[in-house]
């Protein structure tokens, strides 16, 4: 049961991550491979503020969201000068830079040693030390992000995002300053990823840089491609699927020495099959 609970919480942390990336990649058509960086900024902000400065969880996660958004805004400004492949490459590079900062700014982040002993969240003296109560917090967080995403995609703003994906130049003719729209969605989604980071840090109670590298960004990207681009439900389905998949493979009975590699092979194979037979993802509509 404890194991099932653990997986559900992980899914609850990955859903906001996937939703936030989907708003950028699926809806707006910006191939950003840097979301793990914002996830990491949220996680490190919460970890450092809580362990070193003794902030409460609530204030720390709020700061984590703000910090991730600010960095997202700065990066968004730089990225607004790039398009298509170059956009992907620059965002890719940014993830590496942030990862290197986590790894090398040892006086702040303790480098590869990571930050242990992060407290579980507590509200008004009530500590969410058991996993059931943490699950409730995760569900609240994921639902909140889902509702915000839903409201964005149903608004006129959401329609403009799709317009940018389809033909940014033609859209500008209607009087849309598309750069501002792209920057805004980048800031909002960086904050969402920051929230997921804060949840992760206080759930695992230990973080180190390896969680927030390129692999993680690509994993989140795989979730939304698999679940469905430009589909909020797709982000949820994708997160459930890709978190559970390795666990299912655990029971298939690969010998332990090749189990990890087999997982990677299965991921790759799934993505290839999906691109061939269902390019819109499991429940998506938009075709890449």
């Amino acid at each position, binding site marked *: 049961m404890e194991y099932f609970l653990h997986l559900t919480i992980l899914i609850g942390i990955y859903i906001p991550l996937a939703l936030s990336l989907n708003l950028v990649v699926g809806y707006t058509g910006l191939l950003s491979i840097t979301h793990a960086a914002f996830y990491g900024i949220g996680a490190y902000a919460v970890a450092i503020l809580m362990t070193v400065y003794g902030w409460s969880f609530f204030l720390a996660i709020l700061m984590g969201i703000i910090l991730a958004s600010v960095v997202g805004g700065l990066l968004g400004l730089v990225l607004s000068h790039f398009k298509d492949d170059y956009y992907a490459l620059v965002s890719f590079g940014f993830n590496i830079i942030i990862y290197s900062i986590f790894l090398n700014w040892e006086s702040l982040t303790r480098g590869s040693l990571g930050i242990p002993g992060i407290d579980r969240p507590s509200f008004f003296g009530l500590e969410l030390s058991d996993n059931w109560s943490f699950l409730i917090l995760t569900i609240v967080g994921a639902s909140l992000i889902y509702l915000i995403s839903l409201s964005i995609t149903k608004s006129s703003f959401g329609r403009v995002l799709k317009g940018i994906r389809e033909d940014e*130049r033609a859209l500008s*003719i*209607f009087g849309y300053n*598309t750069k501002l729209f792209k920057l805004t969605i980048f800031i909002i989604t960086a904050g969402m990823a920051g929230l997921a980071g804060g949840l992760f840090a206080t759930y695992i109670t230990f973080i180190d840089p390896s969680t927030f590298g390129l692999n993680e960004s690509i994993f989140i990207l795989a979730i939304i491609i698999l679940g469905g681009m430009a589909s909020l439900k797709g982000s949820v389905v994708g997160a459930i699927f890709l978190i559970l998949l390795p666990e299912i493979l655990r029971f298939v009975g690969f010998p332990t020495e090749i189990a990890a590699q087999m997982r990677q092979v299965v991921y790759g194979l799934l993505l290839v099959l999906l691109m061939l037979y269902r390019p819109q993802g499991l429940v998506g509509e938009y075709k890449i």
Partner: protein
Amino acid sequence: MIKTENIKKSFGGVKAVDGLTISFPEGKIIGVIGPNGSGKSTLVNLLTGFTPYDSGLVKVGEHTVLKKIKAFDISSFGITRTFQDVRLFEQMLVMDNILIAITSRHVFGSLFEKHKKYHLDIAEQVLKKVDLWEKKDELAHNLSYGQRKLLEIGRVLAMDLGEENGLHTIFFDEPFAGLFQEMRKIVSKIIKELRDRGKTVIIIEHNMEIIRELCDYVFVLDSGKLLAEGKVDEVLSKKEVMEAYLGE
């Protein structure tokens, strides 16, 4: 009123627009004609901020003088355009292709805005006019070529109805190319109606029959320069215009 003063644009060594000084008369249907490569589409791209001009000025209205035009600014002057190669928002519904031309342009305004009955009423009116009401819930991607052209024109009409002051000047880049007779009738009716409501309509067109039927005034370009301008019959009977077209 849009005026250009000696605007120039070169691509590499080719002078696409070579020192054009023209003034588009208001409230008329104006044809821009000329052989292939004479600079017609480039001129529209320069005036709508799609391509920056190398030198010269563009005047919009009485007081606005522009050394540089940004594409997203032109709608604030009441100007819009269509594209020769029809640029729709492909993987969006026909309805959304229209709504996007009406809803809020502001980042925060749009974030908290959902389309209302007011927007839907305009969209319905426009889609019925271009005969696409039945297709409103289909992806633009699935429309036929003619329907695509009509949807693009529908976006222009929606923009006109949605803006407080309406549009002032509309550039149509080959609106009739590849259309069947029935659809041509719809488009030419729309263009005439726009003119009758006081809009300046500028069309790039190759078909002389259409030019004669629709246009009140015409500019002839050749190698990026102005070859002739004036009333259609007068201009089309000029010897140098015939030569530019027939290559004699």
